[in-house]
Structure formats: structure tokens, C-alpha cells
């Protein structure tokens, strides 16, 4: 019902939007170009990628292709996900609603059960005449379990769907498992793979994405390309491992007093570092970095094709990850924590003719992608979506901006026991502060001053001098959700 209705409404908007968009584009338009002004969208997502990339300041990690993209984009340096776990984060980003609205807090719940009428980002484009296609992991997929399937896809969002599967799936028996006992999808596990990039699932993702662009280059498209790496198992061809000699990889080691002032519920990895020794952690980190570089190379191929097919000048490229990833900070690994490394994501947006490698320090959210793309392409999103268009920041990265970023996680206490209890950890990030509350502050409070303490080492919530900051941040945090 709703999509139909919207479709009618928006067909009229299309007529006026190209006119509006000429103001964004530098070159003057004639009729023929006007037709082309309808931007394509290329949304590229990585899985479990944190900001360990050269363009984000970690020069140890080689990401030449994403760096190249960043050079012609706006790079958001303070971009945050809403729930650092695949499904909740992706659903939030793609529906435009915070997890409290989608009701998706785990990997099982399907959002259509809770919000059947939602119009997803690709669905909005599809409803408005775009060719909407997905390759790989955009909605949640169990990795590696679901590779090659539709995962928890939303079929009505797409005109075409491709589910690549590569030799990594066939070679799971060869994996080196550093954390026996943990499921493959949540383990420190890697494979120095034989063969070529193209044989890996992510290599096929790139190939299929290029194919779709070739086939549809003459009509407006919304193409979502979802890579599966660097999600574990960390599988990449050997040449990517060779970029990181084991003895050059340095693992994080925290001061033993690090956890003295932090609530224990903040831990997602317990025991710290899974109790692994430095050698194993180093192996894991090398494999994670190798997977990043491998994924980066596949992104490079898609970007090359965009150029080759002369689509670059009328395609908005968005690159992001579904959430961040701890690699030993505070002894934590992976996601599901409220620390910066888990809450933060890379977010790069290339808008032809407008972005040129600048970065913005404003706090933005994955939620903001939906209204941004809708505005850029002149589509009208559902009025109740919760993000805010980033267009003002794309035009001026230093534009005044007072929207903080919110992130939440869920914890299950006394799992499978009669007194099992599910609680929420909630975080609000401003440009200076991160403030976290566990179970509405009943199970702990954290305050970190990113101006002086970007590593989040000192919890100032226990410091009486910061009582007023805590109070202000608590009010700000509560603005993001309805308290019971």
C-alpha cells in the first residue's frame, strides 16, 4: 500500500529535483545532461571494519584504494553506528530508525516482524524508478555460515540480488583457529589462502557488482555492494598477509589498572583478550589487517569500473562499515562494546564535483546516510526516519552541527537462568565527550574526555569534579529514547 502511494507522490518530485541538483553540480547542464543528473548510488559496505585505515590515520594498514576514494570524498572522522552488531546496525541504517524503533537487538529478529511498513533505503530508490540491486552482505548474513544464501535479506528492497560464494567457504577446514570453542563467526580464526582474489567470495562480490554496473549503466541505479571481509574468519590470499610481517605487527597492551575504574558490564570480551598470549593476538591482528587490505583491493576494482564505465561523474559513492571493531583496546575484541573502536565507523561519501578530500569532525551517524542519499537524489524519505541529511556538512565540513551520535548494546545477565535479565548499555558521543550508561545507570556509568583522553582510559564519571558534565550528558542521552 504505502510504497504505491509514495511512488505516486514522488514521481512529481522527480520533475523538480534535477533542477535543484544543478545547483550542486559545477558544470552547467543541457537537456541531455539533465537526464544524467539523476545520481546513481553506489553503496559499498565492509563487514566488521574499524577505522584502521591509512586515510583514517593508521599508516600501518594498507588501504590504497579506499584512500584514493577518500581523496575525492568527504571523510567523516566522527561517524558512529547505532548498535555495534551486524543485524541491528544494518537494519537501523537501512530503515532509518534507531534500534529502539526497529526492535532488532540481536541476530535473529527480523525487522519486518516489528515494522512491516518500513520503507528501506534501497526500497525507496526502487519505488522511485531506480534499478535497485544488491551483491553480497547488505542486510544481515551469518558469516561465514550464510555466505552464498540470501541471509536475512529483505526481498522487496531489490530488483536484483546476487549471493556470491567463493573458495573460502569450501576451505573452512583449513582455518587456523586461535579461539577454540567460539563459533567461527565470533572467533579469532584465519587462513592464508592460496589462489587468486577472484576465487574468494569478496573477489566475486566485486566481479558481480561490476557486471551489474555494466548491464545497467544507462538507467539510474542504486547498487549496494556488501563485502564480507574483514569479518572473521580472516581469509585473504597470501600476498595480503605478506604486507604485514608478523614481527612488525604490534598488539595493544593496556596498563594493568585500565579496568579499575570501568564497570565490568562494559566488557564484551571476558577474559580480556580471550586470555590469549601476545603471539596469538599478533597472528589474529595480522590476519585482520590482511583481510582489510584484501577487501580494499576488491573495492578498488569496483571503483576502477565506475571510472571505466564513465559513471563516476553521476554516481554518489558511499563507503561505510556496519560497525567498528576492537582489536585489543581495553583487552576487548570485535564489537558489541561502547568503546570508541566499536562505536566508530569509517564513513566516506563521494559526491562528484563537490567533495574533494576534506574531512568533517562533526558527530554523525549511520542513520544519517538514508536522508542524505534521499536528499541528494531528490527522493522523499518517510517523514519519521530518525537521521539527518549530511548535505550541509558535505557542502561545508565545518558547518554548525549540534546532533550527537548515539550507540547502544544489549547485555544478557544470568543467561538461561531463572533470573535472566536483558539490559541495555547506551552511549552518547559529542565532539568532546563519550558518556555511557548501563541499565539506565544502575549497572555503571562512564564518562570519557576525548579532548584529553582519546584512548578512553580514565572514567571521569567517578570524579566528583565532572558531576555537572555527567548530568548534562545524561540528559542528552535520554533524548535518544523514551525512558520507562
Amino acid at each position, binding site marked *: 500500500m504505502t510504497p504505491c502511494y509514495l511512488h505516486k507522490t514522488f514521481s512529481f518530485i522527480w520533475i523538480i529535483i534535477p533542477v535543484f541538483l544543478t545547483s550542486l553540480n559545477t558544470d552547467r547542464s543541457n537537456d541531455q545532461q539533465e537526464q544524467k543528473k539523476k545520481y546513481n548510488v553506489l553503496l559499498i559496505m565492509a563487514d566488521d571494519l574499524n577505522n584502521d585505515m591509512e586515510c583514517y*590515520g*593508521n*599508516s*600501518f594498514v594498507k588501504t590504497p584504494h579506499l584512500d584514493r576514494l577518500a581523496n575525492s570524498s568527504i571523510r567523516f572522522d566522527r561517524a558512529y553506528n547505532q548498535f555495534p552488531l551486524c543485524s541491528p546496525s544494518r537494519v537501523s541504517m537501512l530503515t532509518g530508525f534507531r534500534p529502539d524503533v526497529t526492535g532488532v537487538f540481536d541476530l535473529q529478529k527480523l525487522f519486518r516482524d516489528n515494522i512491516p511498513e518500513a520503507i528501506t533505503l534501497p526500497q525507496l530508490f526502487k519505488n522511485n524508478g531506480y534499478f535497485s540491486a544488491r551483491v553480497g552482505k547488505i542486510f544481515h548474513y551469518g558469516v561465514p555460515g550464510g555466505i552464498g544464501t540470501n541471509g536475512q535479506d529483505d526481498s522487496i528492497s531489490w530488483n536484483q540480488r546476487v549471493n556470491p560464494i567463493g573458495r573460502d567457504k569450501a576451505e573452512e577446514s583449513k582455518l587456523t583457529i586461535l579461539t577454540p570453542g567460539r563459533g567461527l563467526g565470533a572467533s579469532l580464526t584465519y587462513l592464508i589462502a592460496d589462489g587468486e582474489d577472484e576465487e574468494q567470495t569478496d573477489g566475486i562480490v566485486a566481479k558481480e557488482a561490476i557486471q551489474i554496473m555494466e548491464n545497467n549503466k544507462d538507467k539510474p541505479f542504486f547498487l549496494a555492494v556488501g563485502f564480507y571481509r574483514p569479518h572473521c574468519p580472516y581469509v585473504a590470499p597470501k600476498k595480503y598477509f605478506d604486507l604485514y610481517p608478523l614481527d612488525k605487527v*604490534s*598488539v*595493544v*597492551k*593496556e*596498563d*594493568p*589498572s*585500565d*579496568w*579499575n*575504574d570501568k*564497570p*565490568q*558490564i562494559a*566488557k564484551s570480551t*571476558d*577474559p*580480556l583478550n580471550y*586470555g590469549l*598470549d601476545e603471539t596469538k593476538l599478533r597472528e589474529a591482528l595480522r590476519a585482520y589487517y590482511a583481510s582489510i587490505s584484501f577487501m580494499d583491493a576488491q573495492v578498488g576494482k569496483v571503483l576502477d569500473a565506475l571510472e571505466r564505465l564513465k559513471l563516476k561523474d553521476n554516481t554518489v559513492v558511499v563507503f561505510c562499515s556496519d560497525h567498528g571493531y576492537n582489536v585489543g*583496546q581495553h583487552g576487548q575484541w570485535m564489537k558489541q562494546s561502547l568503546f570508541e573502536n566499536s562505536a566508530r565507523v569509517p564513513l566516506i561519501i563521494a559526491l562528484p564535483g563537490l567533495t574533494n578530500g576534506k574531512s568533517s569532525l562533526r558527530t554523525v551517524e549511520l542513520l544519517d546516510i538514508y536522508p542524505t542519499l534521499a536528499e541528494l537524489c531528490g527522493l522523499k524519505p518517510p517523514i519519521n526516519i530518525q537521521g539527518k541529511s549530511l548535505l550541509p556538512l558535505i557542502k561545508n565540513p565545518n558547518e554548525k552541527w549540534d546532533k550527537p551520535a548515539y550507540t547502544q548494546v544489549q547485555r544478557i*545477565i544470568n543467561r538461561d537462568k*531463572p*533470573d535472566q535479565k536483558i539490559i541495555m548499555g547506551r552511549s552518547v558521543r559529542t565532539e568532546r565527550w563519550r558518556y555511557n550508561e548501563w541499565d539506565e545507570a*544502575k*549497572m555503571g556509568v562512564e564518562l570519557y574526555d576525548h579532548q*584529553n*583522553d*582519546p*584512548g578512553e*582510559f*580514565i*572514567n*571521569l564519571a*567517578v*570524579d*566528583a*569534579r565532572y*558531576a555537572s558534565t555527567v548530568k548534562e550528558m545524561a540528559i542528552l542521552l535520554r533524548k535518544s529514547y523514551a525512558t520507562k
Partner: protein
Amino acid sequence: MRNKKNWKAIRLVFLMLIFQNIITAQQTARPNVLFISLDDLNDWIGPLNGYKGVKTPNMDKLAKQGMSFSKAYCAAPLCNPSRVSLLTGVRPSTSGVYQNQHPWRPTMPDVITLPQYFMANGYDAYGAGKIFHETFHDSASWRKFHQVLGSPKPEKVPTNGFANFDWAPLNANDEEMEDYKIVQYGIDYLNEKHESPFFLAIGIRKPHLPWYVPKKYFDLYPLESIVVPKIIENDLSDIPARGKEMAHSTFGGSSNDHKFILENDQWKKAIQGYLAAISFADAQLGRLLDALGRSAYKKNTIIVLWGDHGWHLGEKEHWRKFALWEEAIQTSLIVVAPGTIKPNSVCGRVVSLMDIYPTLIELCGLPEKKGLEAKSILPLLKNPRLEWNYPAITTYGRNNHSVRTERWHYIRYSDNTEELYDHNKDPYEWKNIASEQKYADTIKNLATWLPKINAAPPPVDTSLLRQRQQMRRDTMGIKD
């Protein structure tokens, strides 16, 4: 008039001379103090029999010379605040020093610590090992303090546990252990001749984690002989949320200690490790006591031995300290005061570690120190059966308190939730009866002892930030 004034002055000088003589005379007669602490020692020592079969021959011997206390409680169930309250006479709730990372000297710049007070009264105060929590050593408290750091480790760590929560026998001699060297400092000191009376503090670090001690101490406790504590199913079912949080979340440790222990079948091995560490510490204590016995100070030295707090080994699904239950707050206390205490006596009255400060002052004949939030237990040293109606107050974090009397144990958390245990009927604290109406008056009476001041914690120490940042930079370089 004028003459009268002069006469007054002369009389004053005269009196001062007399007092001076008395003080000097007293000083020569004043007893020395041997002040011995053991880190993380609960009541698992022979004289208190907290674990049947623990082997602590030296503590047994020490107890025979003096008095052991079967109901001695810490003022805070973790190192820094417990030690600071004992050594300053200021409760955690008055100072705001609640946690291990809370610096205490900046919040109490003028406080006179126990060794400082002895120094102000003609003593020499020397120390070695862990007396104050390491991070907050206080140079004003000592003439000289000797620090020893570093014991051997097993080849592969963690061996049986995780991180610091680990236990394993060492292929090492006692001589290589830091506690051996700490005690050696004390032995050397006792072998020397000293002009002034002394306050000698020896802080033994074991049985603090990790429990890496020479193998012979593990061999004292064959695994098949180990008995795990008595527990009941769902012991936490009647505990308020704050209490459960304490059970499952320990500062600086792991919220999954007990889960880890069960899943990895480490309960007996962990207990074996703790017992081995206790017996190792006891052996070092023995060397110190032997040295005192051989020294010139044998007859004129008061000995106080104390643990800084209790330790859970699975009771209430909890490990370590960091809680307000009996296992976390009760610890060991033995006092030897020749001539005052009847040898081999046991006192079952409730006492607090904070009582040590005023008691030592009184035992040594120092002027009374005003403002201490504790009382001398000298009357109990003279008569352990004396009626004694003072509860022990323990504080863990702001506004969480325990009030322990001989019969009752009352806990009040900051959200006003409560626990009450009747030790006459329930020595293991299995049944929280706080909600039963018939105990309302009991609770009301116990609550009158709750501290009236609950100070805010001190400002965070910025040097800690630098230290943690540096550590990450050292290993990571690019990660900040």
C-alpha cells in the same frame, strides 16, 4: 606581680625538665612494633581455622604467644582503602577513598599516618614490601622504605586461569621470591642495633594473586585432599541487584571468575594455589619471627599481624574481595604484646582493622591521638571476654556499607536495598532475612551505625591517564 610571673616561668621550666626526663625514660622502655601485613589473606590460617587443613605453623606459633581475633573486619574489602583507613584512622566514607585507584594523600594532605605518628613520638619507622597500596606510597610515613618487585613466573602464563587470576607451582627457590627479599630486609633490620624504639613494617605480598609459589608449597596440599567451600544452589536469588553486581563484577578482575572456574574445572586447583601461597607467606613470616626471637628486641616488641581484607573462593559465586559479605570482609588479626596479653588466647568480639592505630598508640604509651575514627581494643587484649558492643563497619564504594555485630550482619547498598543475616543460625549467609517484618527493629538499630558522612570520591589522578596512555603507546604507537 612581676615576681609572681617569674616564678610561674621558673615553675614551667622546671616542670618541663621533669616531663622531659619522664619522656626520655619512657622512650628507652617503650616497646618496639613489628607490624606485619599479608596481602589478600582471609581467615584461612591455623589459629582461625577458616580452612581445615591449612598449614601455617608460624602463624600458629605466633598466635600461641598472643591473641588471635576470630571476628576481625576490614573497613573496606579492597587493598587501597582498607590500608589507608587502617593507617590514617579515617574511614573510607569520610575520606572518599573508596577504590584502589583513589589517591589518598592529595585528599588528606595533613593526615598523620600511624608510622608518622610513631615517628613524631620518637620512634624510627622503617618498612618494606606492601604496606600502602603500591601506587600510593607515602614518603612522609617512613624514615626509609624498601621496595622489592618481581618474582619468577612459570614459563607459560596464564597456566591454569586467565590474566592475573592464575595459579601454578614454580620451579624456583624461596630465595628468588620478592617476599623472601622483603622479609630479608626485616631480618637485616632486626640484626642491627638501634638507638630509638622502632616501628618496623613488613608487607608480605602473598597470598595475593597470581599464586605462583615454589612447588613444595603446592605439594603440601594434594589435589585429592582439597575441599571446596560449602555452597547452596541459587545463593544469589535473594540478593539485591547491587549485591549480584558485586558477585559478578569485580574491579580489576573478571565478571566471569566463577563461570571460568566451573567451566574449566579449576575450583580445587585454585584453592590449592591459594593455600600454597598462604603457606609460602607463612614460611617467610617464620623467618622474620625467628630473627626477632634471636634478636635483642625479642622481649620488648609488640607484634601485630593483619590481612587487609577477606577473600571469596567461590562462596556466593564470587571470587576475590570486592564485596560486603562475610568472606570478603573478615580477615586475620593476631596481636602479641608480652605482659599485656595472656598467651594463646582467642577473642571472639567484633573488632575492626582500624582499631589497630589507637590500640598500638595506647600499648606503646604514646599520647592519645585525637580524631581517629576507631577505638583502642586494649581492654580486650587484657580481657577478651569483656562485653564489647561496637560493630565493625565496612564500606565498598560510596554509600554501600556493612554493619557487623557478633550476631548480625547487615548490608545496605546505595540504592537502599538491604541484606540481613543472623550468624547464630546462618553462618554461611545463605538466607537474606532483611525483608522479614520481625527484623525491622533489628535493622533499625543496626542502621544507626551507618556512617553519616559519605564523601565524594577524590578527583581522578591525571598521572594515571599518562601511565595508561604511555602503556598503549609503548606497545602500539599508532593506536591512539
